[in-house]
């Protein structure tokens, strides 16, 4: 036991109790530990701990050690001899110019994050749905990235711990394992950078590395699951991140009716959708210039000049992380896959419907830029003069980009025993009702 830190011994003390009790113990211990390290933060931690206790007690009868991690890969992946799960898609046989993963219907994907083990992915799924990852046990990743809401949350601006309303909407997580730029303002270029963002942002999940470390190591079920997954007795922060990334990278949506069309199954699209596709890629509408197949994003920063919702200040976007005034109001071009599932639209959720979002581009360059703002608007923002029926066809086509066939199953329970976040809207509960994989 030489060299074990206090967090680990804490985990030993907690062993054998029900998970919520263990978490409560961890919380108390955390306050004690942190107070030694950071006296100034004691007061805040104590408050958060007080908030943290009641739901745990309420959930005390949840199972703690009945979790069994999947031995098979998620359906978009195949298990290879090295024990890793590798993405399977017809797009993988296709090349792309300069390996950039942008082009047309016959273009391959950008590099994929893959090779995670089935256990890493499934452990990540449990973590993803577990509110114990937040400072007060109230918010899980899945609170804002709900499988039933296109892996977003249906809100214009997301709500973090303590009911704090954020400035931006939750981006969908579909296909993030194929991305190289993350967050609306593009401030991360790897999932490793991304994954720490929401965990430690004060208005999102609000936890700290020390709290996360201590809390998870105090839950025997997690210690056991991490041991099964990584072969270590002690949960490391990097293992938590890796499992979350493994799960994020498993969220694949590449089998829409459009994708059938791209494979030469032309009857998969209706005449109206094909008409919309041709408007989409025409140089009048220019949608495909930034929402480029196959991911329907070129992953660049674009300054659009969308109007801010009432009561919200103008969002400077990418100028924040880069300090570059020419990127003021710039945001990462989002993927349009499953776009019908992720209303409202734009970084601020300003547009309630897809039609309104499309209409924005038809209303003239800079029409919604606030007085006094000087923005370097993207050159493709112009006045395409689309007819109303052309806008309808574009919306028709966007509907052909929907594929939630590999929607992740919501676990019935999570190792902390805390309540699993449930959808804010019950319009589509198929997976929630039946998606749990039976052993």
């Amino acid at each position, binding site marked *: 036991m030489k060299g074990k830190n206090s967090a680990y011994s804490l985990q030993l003390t907690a062993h054998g109790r029900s998970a919520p009790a263990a978490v409560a113990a961890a919380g108390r211990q955390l306050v004690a530990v942190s107070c030694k390290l950071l006296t100034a933060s004691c007061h805040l931690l104590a408050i958060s701990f007080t908030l943290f206790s009641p739901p745990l007690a309420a959930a005390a009868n949840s199972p703690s050690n009945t979790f069994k991690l999947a031995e*098979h890969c998620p*359906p*978009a992946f195949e298990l290879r001899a090295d024990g890793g799960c590798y993405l399977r*898609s*017809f797009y993988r*046989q*296709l*090349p*792309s*110019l*300069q390996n*950039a993963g*942008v*082009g*047309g*219907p*016959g*273009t391959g994907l950008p590099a994929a994050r893959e090779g995670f083990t089935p256990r890493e992915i499934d452990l990540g799924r449990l973590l993803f749905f577990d509110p114990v990852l937040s400072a007060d046990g109230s918010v899980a990743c899945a609170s804002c990235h709900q499988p039933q809401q296109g892996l977003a949350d249906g809100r214009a601006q997301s709500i973090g711990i303590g009911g704090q309303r954020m400035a931006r909407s939750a981006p969908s997580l579909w296909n993030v394992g194929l991305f190289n730029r993350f967050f609306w303002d593009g401030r991360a270029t790897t999932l490793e950078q991304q994954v720490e963002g929401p965990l430690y942002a004060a208005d999102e999940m609000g936890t700290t590395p020390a709290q996360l470390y201590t809390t998870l190591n105090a839950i025997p079920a997690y210690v056991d699951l991490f041991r099964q997954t990584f072969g270590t007795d002690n949960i490391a922060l990097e293992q938590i991140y890796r499992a979350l990334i493994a799960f994020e990278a498993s969220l694949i949506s*590449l*089998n829409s*009716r459009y*994708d*059938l*069309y791209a*494979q*030469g*199954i*032309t*009857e*998969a699209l209706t005449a109206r959708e*094909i008409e919309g596709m*041709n408007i989409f*890629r*025409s*140089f*009048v509408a220019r949608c495909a210039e930034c929402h*480029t197949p196959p991911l329907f994003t*070129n992953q*660049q*920063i*674009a*300054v659009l000049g969308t109007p801010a919702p009432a009561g919200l200040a103008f969002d400077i976007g990418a100028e924040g992380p*880069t300090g*570059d005034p*020419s*990127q003021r109001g710039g945001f990462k071009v989002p993927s349009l896959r499953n776009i019908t599932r992720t209303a409202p639209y734009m970084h601020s959720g300003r547009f309630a419907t897809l039609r309104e979002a499309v209409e924005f581009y038809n209303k003239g*360059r800079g029409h919604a830029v606030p007085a006094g703002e000087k923005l*370097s*608007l*993207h*050159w493709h*923002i*112009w006045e395409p003069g689309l007819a109303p029926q052309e806008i309808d066809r574009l919306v028709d086509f966007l509907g052909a980009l929907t594929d939630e*066939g*590999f929607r992740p199953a919501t676990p019935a329970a999570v190792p902390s025993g805390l309540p699993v976040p449930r959808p804010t809207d019950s319009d589509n509960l*198929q997976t929630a009702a*039946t*998606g749990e*994989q*039976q052993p």
Partner: protein
Amino acid sequence: MKQSLIYLCLFIGLLATAAAPAADIKVKDGDSIQAAVNKARPGDTILIYPGTYKESVYIDKDSITVRGVIDEGEWPTMDGEKKLNDAILYSGNNITIEQLKITNYKGNAIMGQAGNNYVIRHNWVIDTGVYGIFPQFGKNGLIEYNVLSGIEDAAIYVGMCDNVDVRHNEVFNNVAGIEIENTRHAIVENNYVHNNTGGILAFITPGLPIKTTYDVIIRNNFVVNNNTPNFGAEGSIVANVPVGTGIIVMAGDDVVVEGNIISGNNTAGIVVTDLSFITDIASDPDSEPNPDRMRILRNFMINNGAKPVAAVRALALANFTTKGPDILADGTAKDKARGSCINDKDSYRTFGLRHWGECDMTTTAAIRSHRLDEPVPPRPIANDIERAKKVYSGICAGCHAYNVRMVGPATQVIQAIHRNNPQAIADYIAAPVRKRPDYPEMPPQNHLSADLRLMVAEYMLSLDK
């Protein structure tokens, strides 16, 4: 037995497909070009006879030739009437488009979306909106013997491509004549580029997903009298092109300018500059802004700079003249560190070339083409058994695992019910009904053709793990 029979039939079907000789499909005035494209199989040629065709045509299949038949000077004409977006959009490989007159579209005459091995030649393009000929994301292309005018951006716009030759074209009365943008391995030669705002541009646009331009040869072109006032749309990048510019190289690397006749361009014959040249778009830290290793070999340059735009006029005044130069290096293009060079520097009027040395070469003549020796290979998508596997793993496997319940019943369970009856599965998936109260209803797959559904059903029944 039944399964092998089905495979046998499919096999024969494939043989028949492969054996089908390439056909000519004739399109006459009043017919639809798109209907012919829909009917065409790879290898076919669509012959378009004189007449007026008011449609937008898309080609999402490989190896199609669209060829106009010009009859005693009568051209087949695609006319967008300023209502239609693009005349021809293609994404297939091995697309050839030739001998069409295309006019009055709003977007493009011919736009490629990641089609490789493209050939676009002998087309007559008049005012087709933003661009004339615009291959994008394509590898290995040829653009030759086209005549284009009246385009509000670039007449020939090679954007994010590799390995392309642009030769023997005439481009005039456009904002930009020929653009090589975020593209590698291009030759622009033997073109007549006159009366545009700017003639030939090789450059990097920041903020695009493919970031570089390099290995471009601009040679043996006539670049003459490009003095048409800029009529680019507000906010477009091309609206930055100074009127009276023959050749602009912005941020591109390893660009060679050789053997051109560059005359009568009122601002400057050649401008070499960095990305600070355009000021009103968001910067991109991933775009390298400097023009490196530019080589200006022997060119014929007279009468350039007669009436320079204000910024160049200011530079001229600093050089004690009112005329613009033959060659202008601006921004970091002036720096010794860029490694640029010029032959016979003293025979031209130049600004900013003080640190440019003599080149170590005199000609690129040994390089005949930047196209590939072998075409880009075909894409591995075909209507065969492999496709059934792809459909199964892509769609079915999302809900049906082999031996465990997922969203739908396990594959083993379905196999037990329909062991010898793939047709029953093929029919069911076209119009599913709810059979089990504790499972959701399956979404219909009737967008798959009957034969593909049957192939997928066969495949599902053949699985053993």
